[in-house]
C-alpha cells in the first residue's frame, strides 16, 4: 500500500483504475437507474415522488463518506506527513461539496410536494447545510494559501475541527424532534424499508460510490500534475533568471 504513496506509482496505478472505475460505475448506475424506474414500486404514501430518494439518499451518504475520507487524509497530512494525503484532501473537497449540494437540492425537491415546503430549519437539514458551508470554506482556504504544503496543513486542521458535525448529522434525527424522518436503512434492527425498494437504493449507492472513487482518483492525479507543473515552472523561471544574470555579467565585463 505504501508503495503507492509515491506519486509516480500512484499515477501508474490510477492509469489502470480510472478507466476500470468509470466503466464499472457506468454499468452499476445504469442497472440502478433501471431498477429505480422499472422495478421499484411507487410508495403507498409518497407515490412516484419516492424515486427522488434513490439519488437523495446515496448523495447524503456520500456527503458524509467524502468528509470521512478527508478526515483520514487530514490525519495523514498532520500525523504521518503522507506525500499524497493533502493532494487527496484537496481533491475530495469539491466532490464533497457537489454531493452535499445534490443532497440538499434533491431533498428540497422532495420536501415541497411531501412536506409542503422547500426548507425547514430542522436539525438534520441545518447540519447538512453546515457541512456544505464547511466544504466551501475548505475550498476557499486552499485557494487563499499559495504554498501547497502550508495550505494542506491549514485545511487539515479545519477539516478535523469540522468532523464534529458528522455525528451531529447522523444522530440529529434521534437527538432532536425533527421533521426529517429517522434512519430507515443504517439502523439498529436492520433496514425498515421493503426489499423491492432497498435493493435499487443499494445498487444506486454502490454506483454513486464507485463514481465518487473514480472522480476522486482523477482529481488526485490532477493535483499531482499541478504540483509538478508548479515545481517545473519555478525551476524554469530560476534557469531563465540565472541565464539573464550570466548575460548581464558578460556585458559588464566587456
Amino acid at each position, binding site marked *: 500500500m505504501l508503495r503507492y504513496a509515491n506519486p509516480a506509482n500512484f499515477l501508474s496505478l490510477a492509469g489502470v483504475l480510472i478507466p476500470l472505475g468509470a466503466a464499472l460505475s457506468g454499468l452499476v448506475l445504469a442497472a440502478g437507474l433501471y431498477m429505480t424506474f422499472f422495478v421499484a414500486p411507487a410508495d403507498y404514501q409518497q407515490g412516484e415522488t419516492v424515486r427522488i430518494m434513490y439519488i437523495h439518499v446515496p448523495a447524503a451518504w456520500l456527503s458524509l463518506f467524502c468528509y470521512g475520507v478527508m478526515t483520514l487524509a487530514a490525519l495523514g497530512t498532520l500525523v504521518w506527513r503522507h506525500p499524497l494525503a493533502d493532494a487527496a484532501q484537496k481533491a475530495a473537497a469539491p466532490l464533497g461539496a457537489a454531493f452535499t*449540494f445534490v443532497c440538499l437540492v434533491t431533498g428540497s425537491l422532495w420536501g415541497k410536494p411531501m412536506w409542503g415546503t422547500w426548507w425547514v430549519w430542522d436539525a438534520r437539514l441545518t447540519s447538512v447545510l453546515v457541512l456544505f458551508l464547511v466544504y466551501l470554506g475548505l475550498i476557499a482556504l486552499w485557494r487563499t494559501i499559495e504554498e501547497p504544503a502550508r495550505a494542506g496543513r491549514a485545511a487539515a486542521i479545519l477539516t478535523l475541527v469540522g468532523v464534529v458535525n458528522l455525528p451531529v448529522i447522523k444522530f440529529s434525527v434521534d437527538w432532536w424532534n425533527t421533521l426529517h424522518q429517522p434512519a430507515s436503512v443504517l439502523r439498529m434492527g436492520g433496514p425498515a424499508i421493503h426489499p423491492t425498494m432497498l435493493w435499487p437504493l443499494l445498487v444506486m449507492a454502490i454506483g454513486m460510490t464507485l463514481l465518487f472513487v473514480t472522480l476522486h482518483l482523477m482529481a488526485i492525479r*490532477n493535483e499531482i500534475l499541478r504540483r509538478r507543473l508548479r515545481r517545473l515552472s519555478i525551476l524554469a523561471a530560476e534557469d531563465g533568471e540565472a541565464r539573464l544574470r550570466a548575460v548581464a555579467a558578460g556585458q559588464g565585463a566587456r
Partner: protein
Amino acid sequence: MSAHAAFILAAYLLTLAVIGGAALAILLDYRNLRRALSKLPPRDGDEPRP
C-alpha cells in the same frame, strides 16, 4: 404520469448537471495540465509523464 413528475425530473436533471459538470471540469483540468506540462522541458530525475 405522476402529479409530481416535474419534481422528479428536476431532481435527476440537477444531479446529472452537478455530477456531470464536476466530472467534465476534472477532465478539462487534466487536459490543460498535460498540455502545460508538455510545454516545459523535462529535467533529469523527472518522473514519467502520463
